[in-house]
């Protein structure tokens, strides 16, 4: 007799008691944050694919950026980067607040994060309108716009998530120290957007 699958804790009598207790309220524990992290792996792979394409274009090209590409200003993107990185710490403050059951402070921190995100986007739009190359100028320009644009879309979506959390937090008792999936989801997503930007910034502006 092979009995690798049976041990004391799993035999019916012990097991049923536990199962009954668990099944009364929720069907199963909350796996949504884990799900979001798994999904972000996939999101991250889109960016990795685009980064790899960028690096290959760059490696194959004789000169990079191709000759005639106007110089880029570093000051504005630098400030923008600092704002986005800082916002990651701000949003974490919000998360800490909700874990202490302080919804008012959660609202403040999330509002600040959303404003910082909006400033980042505004800075991005300002930079686009002042650059001396367009989408089709050359390969560098095309990759620059598509990569930053695709990331900008993610920032937009992140801001929408944060605004969604703010909206829901207006309802009394929606978020608490025990129940704050939305807050955590928005935070994880925001960190992701932030990390992607750091890589993007290094690739497009610094290297």
């Amino acid at each position: 007799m092979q009995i690798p699958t049976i041990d004391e804790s799993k035999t019916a009598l012990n097991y049923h008691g536990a199962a009954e207790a668990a099944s009364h309220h929720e069907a199963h524990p909350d796996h949504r944050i884990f799900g979001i992290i798994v999904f972000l792996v996939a999101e991250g792979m889109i960016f990795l694919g685009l980064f790899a394409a960028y690096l290959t274009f760059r490696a194959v090209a004789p000169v990079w950026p191709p000759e005639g590409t106007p110089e880029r200003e570093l000051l504005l993107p630098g400030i923008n980067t600092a704002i986005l990185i800082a916002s990651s710490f701000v949003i974490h403050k919000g998360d800490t607040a909700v874990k202490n059951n302080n919804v008012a402070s959660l609202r403040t921190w999330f509002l600040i994060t959303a404003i910082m995100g909006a400033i980042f986007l505004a800075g991005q739009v300002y930079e686009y309108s002042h650059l001396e190359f367009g989408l089709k100028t050359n390969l560098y320009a095309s990759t620059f716009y598509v990569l930053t644009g695709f990331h900008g879309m993610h920032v937009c979506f992140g801001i929408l998530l944060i605004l969604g959390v703010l909206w829901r937090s207006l309802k009394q008792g929606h978020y608490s120290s025990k129940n704050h999936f939305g807050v955590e989801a928005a935070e994880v997503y925001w960190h992701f957007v932030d990390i992607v930007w750091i890589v993007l910034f290094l690739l497009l502006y610094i290297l």
Partner: protein
Amino acid sequence: MTQLQVTDSANLGNTAETNTGGDWRKYFGFSTDHKVIGIQYLVTTFVFYLIGGALAAAVRTELATPDSDFVSRELYNSFFTIHATIMIFLWIVPAGTGGFGNYLIPLMIGAKDMAFPKLNAVAFWMIPPGGILLLSSFFVGAAGSGWTSYPPLSLINGQAGEFIWILSVLLLGTSSILGAVNFLVTLLKMRLPGMGLHQMPLFCWAMLSVSALVLVSTPVLAGALILLSFDLVAGTAFFNPTGGGDPVVYQHMFWFYSHPAVYIMILPMFGMISDILPVHARKPIFGYRAIAYSSLAISFLGLIVWAHHMFTSGTPAWLRMFFMIATMVIAIPTGIKVFSWLATIWGGKLDLNSAMLFGMGFVSMFVIGGLSGIMLASVPVDIHVHDTYFVVAHLHYVLFGGSVFGLYAGLYHWFPKMTGRMVNETWGRIHFALTLIGFNLCFLPMHKLGLEGMPRRVAEYDPKFAGLNLMATVGAYILAVSTIPFVINAVWSWMYGPKASANPWKALTLEWMTSSPPPVENFHEEPILWTGPYDYGIDFEEEGEEKSVEELLAEVKVDVG
């Protein structure tokens, strides 16, 4: 230990009250029940399979004679392009992962549903629009640059059709990613207490490997298609050499997904076969861990061999060497599986029903495809036969002889569980015979055609190839006919077939420990893991004694203590 008796009596007491089964309308709505979604996937994708098959029949009709005399050359290009796109993105991938994955995973691991049921339904409901979108492109001139959509050809070949193709594939890819998130979380987090990873049925191991592969590779295809659509619509030049771009970068990104895609299309079937063969051979699976880990190995190795599709794309020699060796290494985990399956059925008490026949057909046809795969992995051979019918023969032995045979095996094996009815075995065997004959008649000659230099994707050919092409066309028609007995059998059995018991095959995995079809939330009582998934023939049924559940439980406790 008398597992079967116990689980039967413990779990099926109140079958009648919950087993309502009847309401067919739920299959047309937004259901969050993983079993409904699984069947929705299977039926929808099968309809697309028939459409893709009709396109293949049209392609073979054109190729029955050397001249281009059936459809225009442009339409021929669209036919084989859409044929491949449907078969990959609307049949094999969603049927193997979405269909069987959804239906079986929660049942096999004793869960009530998937981790995210709503997300699951959303993923399914992306499939029909994706498919309809793709087919609608025929009204504006469907994409005709092959399912690979290589630029610069795809950029100059009819913008509207190509753009619709991209949108459709992006939609279907998103569906596949959302499905994979669900599978991975469900498999890792929702197993029955007491079921470790090593007590999972091998199908679950396969799905674990597939989901990881989907999550890592599919997004890169999305990236490639986003860039391609910019080239197509906005006039950038990422992949267009005339604007300074590099078409080879597209090929790298495309194959970074599309080589793993062949494992996304075959690993679920590997898993299903590993679960089907032991049941009908009444023997434990040979080398459980070897099969489980080889799935993981395949999925890892699958990620680092993509450039074997690009041996003729100017890939430097040292790189070709690397990809050649890495590709050949994949033969090892695959070979381990094949030997394990053979050892499993060796000396078994085979029940040659339709499921088993297709299972064995799968193993033998897949081996042929695997062997030609090793030939193609070798750079000198590949350069010789690149873009010839040898490649067409190889990929159909893997994807039809492998994947489709595997899907049929799974359909026959789990049909009683899904519908609560038995399928007619005689017609199942006729279906198998017709499929096997038609398949080999159609694709075996293509090896020779390819070695003699007949190029793929061209509507006309040298008259000296006429004989073998006619043979292939006849085979294709037999294949088309072979689906008729299957469809009639399946529909008839679903409505009027004899009622299936909970466990008609006397199988040991958990999906058979509940009624057929299972109730909503799957199990009447929390299932208990009494046995490993493959403990067939081990101390099987002591004759002539009936014990109550309590007595058996006491016995187990003594065993453990």
